[in-house]
């Protein structure tokens, strides 16, 4: 039987629509002419933006910053995420990427990170570097929730777990854990008031304006080696990214990092 006219006209519309989509896809992708994107561990949440604006003042070039857990970023990079520079909180991740051939080299250590205990203002937990106050609250049954970066993919979380196990507190803490996606979120939980205490990056505690809300205690380094933070340029890194990378190892950037509680890496 003769095809109804309406059906034929809509096949025409159909074809035009596909063309439209194709066109849309090719022109719609925003072409940010190579402003480099930096994937940075969450503990750099406050330090790195300062470094970046200093860099911009000096060189006139800007960078885009993304913060998250290092493990998450490593996974995304393996899946082809278009980052130029990766500042990891854990060297093992950099080594993994280097072995996969995704990086220009094995990377450079840019800082050493430290753990800290965060106790929010309205919490009853006593804050001390040996975690004795924490143990006491646990025993007294006064601890309800404890925040930690997710050990599954956040280096600070992994170190925190190691520390807690060493102190014999891990088993008791497990039912009370609240896992943050990364060091920054864990710190945010810890200071939000709905969590009794937490462990996260010391560099986050040094952010201006935060001290007054809470008690934050630096945890001793000899219990566990500081987090060796290594950064690496990805194969697709642009020239501007390489400049930033170099800047990070320079004196101005290092000064900022130290102000925020990072420790100087071994001399280059």
């Amino acid at each position, binding site marked *: *039987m*003769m095809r*109804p*006219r309406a059906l034929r006209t809509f096949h025409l519309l159909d074809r035009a629509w596909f063309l439209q989509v194709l066109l849309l896809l090719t022109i719609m992708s925003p072409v940010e002419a190579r402003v480099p994107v930096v994937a940075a561990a969450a503990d750099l949440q406050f330090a790195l933006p300062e470094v970046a604006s200093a860099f911009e003042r000096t060189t006139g070039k800007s960078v885009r910053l993304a913060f998250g857990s290092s493990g998450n970023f490593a996974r995304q990079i393996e899946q082809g995420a278009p980052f130029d520079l990766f500042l990891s909180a854990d060297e093992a991740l950099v080594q993994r990427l280097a072995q996969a051939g995704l990086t220009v080299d094995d990377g450079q250590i840019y800082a050493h990170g430290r753990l800290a205990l965060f106790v929010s203002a309205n919490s009853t937990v006593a804050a001390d570097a040996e975690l004795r106050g924490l143990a006491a609250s646990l025993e007294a049954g006064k601890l309800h929730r404890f925040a930690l970066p997710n050990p599954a993919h956040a280096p600070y979380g992994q170190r925190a777990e190691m520390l807690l196990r060493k102190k014999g507190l891990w088993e008791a803490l497990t039912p009370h854990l609240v896992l943050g996606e990364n060091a920054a979120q864990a710190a945010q939980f810890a200071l939000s008031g709905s969590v009794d205490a937490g462990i996260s990056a010391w560099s986050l505690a040094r952010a201006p304006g935060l001290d007054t809300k809470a008690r934050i205690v630096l945890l001793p380094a000899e219990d566990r080696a500081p987090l060796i933070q290594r950064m690496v340029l990805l194969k697709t890194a642009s020239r501007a990214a390489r400049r930033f990378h170099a800047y990070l190892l320079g004196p101005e950037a290092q000064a900022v990092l130290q102000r925020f509680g990072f420790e100087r890496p071994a001399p280059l």
Partner: protein
Amino acid sequence: MTDSCTGLEVSLRQSAPIPLSVELTCGPGEILALVGPSGSGKSTVLRCIAGLHTPAEGRITCNGQTWLDTRARYATPTPERRIGMVFQNYALFPHLSALDNVREALPDRRAAHARDRAACLLSKVNLEGLEHRRPHQLSGGQQQRVAVARALAREPRALLLDEPFSAVDRATREKLYGELAELRRELAMPVILVTHDLEEAVMLADRMTLLSQGSSLQSGPPLSVIRRPDSVLVARLVGQRNLFTGQVLNHRTDWTELRWHSLILKVRRQPDHLPGARVAWCIPPEGVLLNATRAEREHEALIDSLDNPLPARVEKALTLGDRVRLSLKTPEAGEETLAMTLPRHLGDRLELSTGSRLDLRLRGSDIQLMADSTLVSPDP
């Protein structure tokens, strides 16, 4: 127009989704009523003619142009058929004014005089002054008229009306009948009117086709179909209550002899039925009369030579308005039930009640013989 004016010729056949087996024709200027109970396929036939539904098999021509020919795998799309259709619920475009509704159907809607033409059509259906109202601001009768104006605006080759009066109250309906009757004088195209109301068909149509379960049973002038049904099925559908069986004895010069139980009736001569054949027969209530009084008998005109006297006994008498409906038993003809009506005053005068005896006569000229006696109860 270079079309030949032969009107509509329709032939449709399908077994699903709705079974159809229809043949009908409608000449230019003629109103054909398509009558049948709900579900008989009347609307489907109309939709096939309009091109809104394509049957499994069929052929439709209008004024010589082929609109549908399934064997040649050809179907003209609806917009090209130039038909005007009035739907049962009018199907007006709810977001357009009456004027715009009509204007959409004009063949040249963009022309300068289009507005005037549309306004003219609306005034023709007595809707002057209401052109700018939206359908929901119009009454049922007014909406119906807009629908008719819109159908006519198309300058159609055929006008199709799908139960257009069913959704309207009685008073409006009477008015609309009158308007349609007037309008048709100007219409030179075939008009098909679908209705389930026999009276409407009788009032408005020139010819009528009776449909049942998708099959066209009988066509002809409405009164002819009602009074002279072809078959018992048709008789039932047109509401004949007096249905009996009999046997044709022989055909005389002026009448046919019919045996009915122990009686021999003189009926209108219908030689198609062979002597000896068992037939079904019917007689309308108007054909059952009181036997003439001596005074009446003297008026020869009142006596039909084909009158058949019949004594009867009243079983039920029901007064409805100004008439009395009687249900009678025939002791001399197997106690069959006969229906008849009398004017009320006559009923009162005769003081009829259950058990009263009456002398009746059956008008032989009103008796219609039909084949197919199997559906009626057998002879004792």
